[in-house]
């Protein structure tokens, strides 16, 4: 039992370390909220985002103009997001996903799911 408890503790430490590594990876990328894409000044920021499979990505519109996000393959499509509105989508499978604002098709971005 003691060994069992010790094992759980080890597991907890390992999980914490993994979390710390992952978190520090995020912080070196310079974005504290790595699954969030800000839509501002007619641009997606970041324009390309890499996440792990199972992550939920949120797009948040900070412009006075509405924007939306439409997957090139039809996998996801938001409605028109007005100012301060957002849209989220969970990416289950690894792959590269391109998206566009159909209101302003010059606005394009990419999600890479690992």
């Amino acid at each position, binding site marked *: 039992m003691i060994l069992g408890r010790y094992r759980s503790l080890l597991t907890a430490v390992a999980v914490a370390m993994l979390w710390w590594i992952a978190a520090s990876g995020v912080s070196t990328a310079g974005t504290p909220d790595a699954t969030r894409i800000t839509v501002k000044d*007619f641009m997606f920021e970041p324009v390309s985002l890499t996440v792990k499979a199972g992550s939920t990505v949120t797009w948040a519109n900070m412009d006075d103009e509405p924007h939306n996000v439409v997957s090139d393959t039809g996998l996801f499509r938001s409605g028109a997001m007005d100012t301060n509105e957002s849209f989220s989508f969970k990416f289950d499978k690894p792959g590269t996903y391109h998206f566009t604002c159909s209101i302003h098709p010059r606005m394009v971005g990419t999600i890479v799911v690992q």
Partner: protein
Amino acid sequence: MSDDRLLQSRRNALKCMAYGGAGTLFALAGGVFTPIELAVAAADKQSAARLGKPLFVQISDTHIGFNKDANPDVNGTLTQTIDLVNGMSEQPALIIHTGDITHLSKPAEFDVAQQMFSRLRTTELHTVPGEHDTTDATVTEYFNRFGKASDNKGYYSFDHAGVHFVALINVLQFKPGGLGTLGTDQLAWLAADLKGRSASTPVVVFAHMPLWTIYEPWGWGTGDSDQLMNQLRRFGSVTVLNGHIHQIVQKVEGNMTFHTARSTAYPQPTAGTGPGPGPLKVPAEQLPKMLGITSVSVVQHPRSLVLSDTTIT
């Protein structure tokens, strides 16, 4: 400033607002549309008469549902626009709306817009959708209300007073990174529609996004518009009317006149000014000068169309 002058300037500002949100009046003259101030046309019956009978008024970019600083009262400016059109001494035969009826494609926005349009004395309304009207993937809300003329395709044609009108849709098949698109089906339909028509028939083509490239970095153009122009070139008088950019830009090329209309809701920056084509906030007293309609008249001798733009000031 004295109190009197302040009062006077307030009065003037209110007077300006009284004409807020007006459209543009077009008269076709020698194939070239000439802008005419609607307010002038309304006030000066002689010059209005010289324009001939107004054929139609173009209203654009009403953006019902918009509520930001650039114009917190788009219903108010559309009401002023409708009052202005209803006040014209001779009523236009048709009203053409070149899209972005709503801001967010919401059912309630469409309902308000339709209610407001029902106040127009001229009851024949022809529309094309803008990209703001089609953000629901299926375009259900727009087509449920305005799809009948085109059998839910978005493009259709009709004739009035010897003028052939063509309504096109260029906001659906968008290409990532690109401009508006007409698409092969629509272009093939148009070829069949124009086939056999006399080159002397005046043609009016209208769509939401500009059918000529005004500013590519902001998507102000239509990628396959060259194929459209090839079909139109043989006609002696072609008028191409668009909205989308919330300001007047004009070009004459051979027998073709290109014209974009003002919005009735809010202005946008000129091409390339600032980060993108968003709502432009201007001082309240300036706003009515940047909103308007376009009106088109037919002059019979020689037979031609004349265009006129009217602001709300």
